[in-house]
């Protein structure tokens, strides 16, 4: 038996990120930082949110947090410069003998 901490009023402390959803899908969004123009469309549309703009080499690029990326393809579809590729996770790359 475990001892549970019960917040009265079924109240909950804020913003748990304990549920890592990065293992949900079969694919992951990968950003081609060369092509990325840092427009932020993917950030706006990502439902998780698992994408943010990060300053790299004096330009802003999208960075995907693979702990939470569910591989939904939404960023892929909204990227105006096709800088995002959807890559099959290694575990699903089955080699056929």
């Amino acid at each position, binding site marked *: 038996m475990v001892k549970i901490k019960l917040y009265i009023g*079924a109240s*909950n*402390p*804020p*913003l*748990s*990120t*304990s*549920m*890592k*959803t990065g293992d*949900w*899908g079969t694919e992951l969004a990968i950003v081609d930082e060369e092509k990325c123009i840092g427009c932020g469309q993917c950030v*706006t*549309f*990502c*439902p*998780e*949110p*698992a994408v943010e703009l990060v300053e790299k080499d004096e330009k802003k690029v999208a960075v995907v*947090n693979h*702990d*939470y990326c*569910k*591989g*939904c*393809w*939404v960023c*892929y*579809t*909204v990227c105006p410069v096709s800088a995002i590729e959807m890559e099959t996770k290694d575990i699903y790359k089955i080699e056929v003998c």
Partner: protein
Amino acid sequence: MNLFGPGHGACPGCGFPIAVRGALEALDGKAIVVNSTGCLEIVSSMYNRNTWGVPYVHSLFENAGAVAAGVEAALRALKREDEAHVVVFAGDGATFDIGFGTLSGMMDRNHNVIYICYDNEAYQNTGNQQSMATPTGAATTTTPVGNILPGKVGRKKDMVGIAVAHGIPYVASASIAYPKDFQRKVKRAAEFKGAKYIQVHSPCVTGWGIDGKLTVEVAKLAVETGLYPLVEYENGQLVRVRKIKERKPVTEYLKLQRRFRHLFSHPKGQEIIEELQRVADENAKKYGLDA
């Protein structure tokens, strides 16, 4: 701290998280959220796994309008009204159907609340049962396709019109395909004192039978066909409409979704498609959608 997520359990490609996050960002996180029972609640508010970065309360399926009214009244009574906007997130089932009474009461009393209905056009939380927001011809588990019936019979309820009829200061429709437009509308709503109603079209990948990668495209097509006009009312006057350059035939929207697939083979399918096209045409005429 993020305002919403990550770590929630919505399906990959789900539409409403885009709206929820967009709205909270538009308000700079100055929000107390009231949420009706539904998909959003289930994916975000499990005990010990709350993914909200703003104060949040969920009570029942059908009372978000009244709970929000109560929160707002309390803030007024306690002289805390400048602390935050009271924002409701409710699905179409909670808004168009079971919670309609409390929403009407909230709008009638003109509480200072921003009510955002994320409209995925059926009870998606429980597996796609029809609501009054379900469009004509859509197959749901309670309006299934059979030898006789071609999915839902009857039209989608005009909640935007009903909200306008309540005489509240601000009413708008939006779509997750146009997040900047939606965010602007939320900001605009926040400028009015009184009840605000925003209805945001938000695809459900499982219920509609689409792939996550089609979420944005399908939502965009709903707007581009005229089936989901993006309109804005201020103090009862239609003030802004998203114009459509070349309105697309509704079939382009319908053919991408499993819930409408039968329309292309069912004996009554053609009739339904024509009916939906008529709805789109009427919308175009009523709101002057065609650019």
